[in-house]
């Protein structure tokens, strides 16, 4: 749908939502905790479109996300991104699918020899590449049509996410055992890429919010020492370099998946004044917000989570109970709190479950610290 087919965003809602959204970052008092269920292709469901349609039409995807934010009364920020960023810039083939986000195949690094010859693209080349070209179509739409909902996000993931979009994940995991120095080399390239990509966004919009962290590098796939070496340390290097290059200031540590064995490492990860930490799971269970606050509450803004499995397949009563428990544990965290989901809102999650998270925040997320 073109822009004129959407009803205007309610400016009163936008003002109130912006006020709620501002509190966790700058301690400006507002009524209650804001909810951010990380809306991406779920917006396509709201608009009765396919996931494929959503991702192949970034301008419309952004409009759908912004209006879905209004519908649910959640974080008023437009997003467009998917996991398999950056592979296509280096020669991988991107496959646009009807019922799931784009995926890549034919990755550019096929063997150990390819690692040595692999060169990271400079910012000017990345800016013209397929990932940013698509990403910026969405961000430019937000900036033009929904300027108050704009955030200059760069979707990077951590070092393991970047390098497994360059080389097949099974090869990378094999090299971690047989030739770990090769993975070190790839991590260094990933760090360089992350800095260059952040530079592109900053050059275009004046500032940058870097989504990083650790998704592949979780406790279900890697042990603590592997996570430290191939994820935590290179990601920390990348964040330090980004901040020292002046291409921040937003740092979003998205620790998706199970981090029971490595969450404590991230306590000392480099941070900026606008840093947030989100951790998905503690073993098989949702990461308790009480534990999140205990470890990160005196450092940065905390992102407490409701299990996406529950949002997707649970009853509203189950969602409400978990959202209540998490928001009560986090709402007065000293450096700000947001209630969200453990990862992206599932595409076909029942809308009532997303609404129920907001209901729990309204009922139990009123601030007492102000």
């Amino acid at each position, binding site marked *: 749908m073109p822009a004129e087919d959407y009803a205007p965003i309610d400016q009163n809602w936008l003002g109130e939502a912006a006020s709620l959204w501002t509190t966790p970052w700058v301690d400006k008092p507002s009524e209650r905790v804001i909810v951010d269920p990380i809306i991406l292709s779920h917006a396509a469901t709201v608009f009765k479109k396919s996931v494929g349609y959503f991702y192949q039409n970034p301008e419309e995807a952004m409009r759908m996300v912004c209006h879905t934010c209004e519908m649910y009364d959640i974080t008023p920020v437009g997003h467009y991104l998917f996991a398999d960023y950056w592979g296509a810039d280096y020669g991988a083939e991107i496959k646009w699918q009807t019922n799931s986000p784009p995926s890549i195949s034919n990755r550019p690094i096929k063997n150990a020899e390819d690692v040595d010859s692999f060169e990271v693209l400079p910012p000017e080349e990345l800016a013209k590449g397929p990932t940013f070209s698509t990403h910026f179509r969405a961000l430019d739409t937000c900036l033009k049509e929904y300027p108050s909902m704009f955030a200059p996000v760069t979707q990077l993931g951590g070092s393991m996410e970047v390098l497994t979009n360059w080389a097949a994940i099974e090869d990378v995991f094999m090299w971690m055992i047989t030739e770990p120095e090769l993975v070190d080399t790839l991590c260094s390239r990933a760090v360089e890429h992350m800095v260059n990509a952040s530079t592109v966004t900053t050059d275009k919009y*004046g500032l940058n919010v870097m989504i990083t962290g650790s998704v592949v590098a979780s406790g279900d796939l890697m042990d603590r020492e592997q996570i430290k070496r191939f994820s935590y340390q290179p990601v920390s*290097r990348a964040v330090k370099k980004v*901040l020292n290059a*002046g291409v921040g200031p937003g740092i979003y540590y998205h620790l998706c998946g199970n981090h029971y064995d490595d969450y404590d490492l991230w306590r000392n990860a480099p941070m*900026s*004044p606008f840093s947030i930490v989100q951790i998905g799971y503690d073993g098989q269970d949702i990461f308790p917000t009480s534990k999140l606050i205990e470890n990160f509450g005196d450092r940065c803004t905390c992102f407490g989570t409701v299990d996406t499995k529950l949002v997707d397949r649970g009853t509203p009563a189950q969602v409400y109970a978990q959202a209540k428990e998490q928001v009560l544990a986090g709402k007065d965290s000293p450096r700000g709190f947001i209630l969200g989901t453990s990862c992206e809102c599932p595409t076909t999650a029942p809308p009532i479950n997303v609404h129920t998270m907001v209901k729990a925040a309204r009922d139990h997320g009123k601030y007492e610290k102000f």
Partner: protein
Amino acid sequence: MSIIDKLKNLGGKGMDVKISAELENLMKDKGIKKEEVQEIINKAESSGNKLKSTDGELCIAKGEFENLTVYAMYSASELKDVYTHKMKILGLTGGELADADYDDESDWVCAKTGEPALERNVDMNYMGVTRPGPGIVCPNGSDFYVSPGVAKTLTTAESVLEEKRA
């Protein structure tokens, strides 16, 4: 001859560093006087409270004013850069110099102790908001600096805070 030796040769008279026209204009734009920078450098030289680059060629001195921290990066003969931030550094985030589990050595050495300075999070306060930021910390945990790039990041952060806290 290292910068330290050259400075020793000045016999405690303080430095008189050369400033390029470009940098002088930048200082004017920021409202910083040449004499203030000179004073910051002289104090750092007499007290030893400064950072020295690992190759010994550059130093960073800082002066803390009520609402502004001013940094001077200089060689033995020339002022190389002047940068500032409004956020006030309060101390180490988390209160102690815990093990960071990553390579946290910076390109700088604490001149007073000769120990490598570390890149660590420090708490910063501005407009009543306290959050972390990347600092350069002397290992005794008593002296904190930021790099020119981080100062740029902080300027952006300060603008956001000014807009959102207004």
